[in-house]
C-alpha cells in the first residue's frame, strides 16, 4: 500500500491511498484503502491521513477518522492522536501497520507499530527525507 498526505500553501489538506491489497488475500476481499475513515481521510479542520498495514484492523478501528475525531473532540495535537490510534487502538487488536498524517497547522506524524515503514517527508526547503526503520 502507498499513500500521501499534503497541506498546500493555502492551508488545504488532502489524502490519497492506493494498494494491491494483501498477498494471497481471498479474491473479492476489500481492505481499508477504499474505505473512507478507515484507510483514508481528510478534513481541513483537523488532518489528512493515509494508512498502511493489516487492513481489517484499520477498518474495525476506523483509524483515519478516529485520528481526526481525537483532534476535533479531545483537542489532542496531531502526534498525540496519531500515536494513540497506531500504538494503542490498533496494537490492542493486534493490527500491524502505520500511517502518515499532516495537520491543519502543517505538523506531520509518521507512526508505525511494526518493524519498519517506508516513509518520507518534504517541505518548502525541498529536502526529501526518507526512512525505513526507526
Amino acid at each position: 500500500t502507498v499513500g500521501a498526505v499534503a497541506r498546500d500553501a493555502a492551508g488545504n489538506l488532502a489524502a490519497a491511498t492506493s494498494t494491491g491489497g494483501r498477498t494471497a488475500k481471498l479474491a473479492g476481499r476489500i481492505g481499508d484503502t477504499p474505505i473512507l475513515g478507515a484507510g483514508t481521510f481528510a478534513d481541513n479542520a483537523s488532518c489528512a491521513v493515509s494508512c498502511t498495514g493489516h487492513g481489517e484492523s484499520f477498518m474495525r478501528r476506523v483509524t483515519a477518522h478516529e485520528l481526526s475525531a481525537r483532534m476535533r473532540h479531545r483537542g489532542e495535537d496531531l502526534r498525540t492522536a496519531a500515536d494513540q490510534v497506531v500504538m494503542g487502538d490498533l496494537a490492542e487488536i493486534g493490527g500491524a501497520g502505520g500511517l502518515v498524517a499532516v495537520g491543519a497547522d502543517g505538523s506531520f506524524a509518521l507512526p508505525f507499530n511494526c518493524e519498519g515503514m517506508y516513509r518520507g517527508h518534504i517541505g518548502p526547503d525541498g529536502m526529501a527525507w526518507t526512512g525505513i526503520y526507526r
Partner: protein
Amino acid sequence: SSFTLALHGGAGTILRATMTEAREAEYRAGLARALHAGYAVLAAGGLALDAVTASVCVLEDEPLFNAGRGAVFNTAGTQEMEASLMDGRDWRAGAVTMLFGPKNPILVARAVMERTEHVCLSGDAAARLAEEAGLPFGDTDYFFTQARWDALAETLRLNAEGVDDGDESRKHG
C-alpha cells in the same frame, strides 16, 4: 503559508535480516521521486489534492511498491487494486475497489469523485469509467513482477502447512 507533504510506500520485505544496501537505495530513490513529484505541485502554489495525486501516481508506476504496477497477487493468482482520495476542503472523495487494468487506480478514484455523483465504484464499472476518462491501461505483463508472484507461492505454501512466519511485510507487499 508553508506547505508540507508526507508519504508511505509498502514495498515488500522490510525485515532487516533480508534488506540489502542496494535494495534499500532503490526504495529510498523511489520514495524521493514521489516526494519531489508532490513537491513540484506545492512549490508552484498548487493544491494539496493535486500533490497527493501526483505522488501516488509515481508510487503506482514503480513496481517496487505494492500498488498499481507492483500490486500483489490474491489466492486466485490475479490482482485486485484499490484506491481512494479525499479533499479536506469539502469532504469530497472518490474510491475504487476490485479494479484491474488502469495503470493508476488513484486517477480512477479521482474520476469517481469528479465525474460521478458516487464515492465508490468497483470492478468493471470502475474500469469502464477509466476508459471513458481516457486513462491509460496495462495488461497482465505490465502488472506482473516475479517478486510478487514468488511471495504468493510462498504464502500459499505456508498457509497450506498452517505456518505463520510473522513476516507481515511479505503479506502486505
